[in-house]
Structure formats: C-alpha cells, structure tokens
C-alpha cells in the first residue's frame, strides 16, 4: 500500500540538526503523542495546519522548510 499522503517532510533531518531532538521531545513541545510524530515523519499522517505550524515553530523554521508538497504534473 502506498503512503496515504503526498505531503513529505524534513522533520527527521531537522530533529538531528536540532541537537538530535528526540521524537518524544518534539511531541512534548507540540502537544501531541510520540506516535503521531512518528506517523507524520513516516508520511502516514498529514497533520492539521495548526500542528504543522507548531512543529515548524519548534524548529524555528518556516513551514515550507519542514513540509513539502510535490508540484502538479502537467
């Protein structure tokens, strides 16, 4: 089965760049469960805009540096 969302993200890379922040630490900062962070990282869940902004804010990065959406093929 393919991934259920086309949204990709750089959360894993950003966590390592941020002093190897753990998934649990990020979950605490965002106010979600660690399982949700894992699901987002693996592309199994697209978060709401609010959670997406909170994740970006946790890294001090703009939203489109954390989440990416592929260009439509014409």
């Amino acid at each position, binding site marked *: *089965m393919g*991934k*259920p*969302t086309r949204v990709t993200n750089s959360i894993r890379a950003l966590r390592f760049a941020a002093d190897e922040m753990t998934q*649990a630490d990020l979950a605490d900062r965002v*106010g*979600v*469960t660690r*399982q*949700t962070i894992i*699901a987002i990282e*693996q*592309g*199994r*869940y697209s*978060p*709401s805009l609010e*959670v997406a902004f909170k994740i970006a804010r946790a890294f001090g990065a703009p939203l489109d540096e954390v989440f990416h959406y592929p260009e439509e093929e014409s």
Partner: protein
Amino acid sequence: MSFEEKLTWVSTSVTVIVVLVYAWLVGGQISETPVGEIAYQGPMIAAAAAMVVLTIIGAIVTAIGAAVSAQITGERSVYDIDRSDERDAHISRRGDIVGYYVSSVLMFGVLVITMLQFEYFWIANGIFTAFAIAGLVSSAVKLVSYRRGF
C-alpha cells in the same frame, strides 16, 4: 502504541470475547429448542452489561500498566500516559462513521425480518448482532488507520 489505540484493542477484545460467549450460550440451544422458547433475554442483557463493565476494567488495567511502564522506563511522566491528540480524534471519527454506515445497513436487514414477522428471538438477536458487527468494523477501521495511516 498510543493510549487511545490500546483502548481500542481493549474494547475490540472484550466485544469478541463477550459475543462468542453469548453465541455459545444461546446459539447452542437453537438446534435443540424452538427459538420462541429460548431464554435469550437474560444472557443478552448480561452480555451488554459485561461489555461495559469489562471495557471499563480493561481501560483501568491498561492505564495502570502504562503508568507502571512510564515509571520504570522514565521515558515520560505518569501524568502524561493518556495523552490523546488530533490524530486520535480523526481516527476515532473515521471509525465511528464507518460503524454508523454498517449499523444502518444491518438495521435495514432487521427491519426486513421484522416486517416478515420473524420470531422476537431473531429480531432481538439481529439487533444485537448488528451492533456487535458495527462496533467491530468501527474498531477494525480505527486499528488499521493507526497502523497504516490515512
């Protein structure tokens, strides 16, 4: 596994066990006794009550287990074990919607057997079975959504 996912496993397990016990107790009489004479009412009420009570007990045991685990591993605060978030809410809503449609279709079947004037035994057990199946399908959708995402 999130706390909400564990609770879904608890309610699913309880439903399967209780329905199987009920089917064993009541269904076993169908071949020997006319259905109009089978005393299904007591076991059915007991089964419904058992589902509620066992699910509550299961949730309490799950919470205690999660708290003990959190205490031993020190990975998170014991006050944080039952955290749920938007993903849990989305998954729960998704399962509930599918369960609603399944119960609606099955209830239509019960309506048909009622119009055909089947014995009360079949009507009552049809409703009981419809709720059980809808609950299990709803739980299955939730568990698959937790595993595969959506």
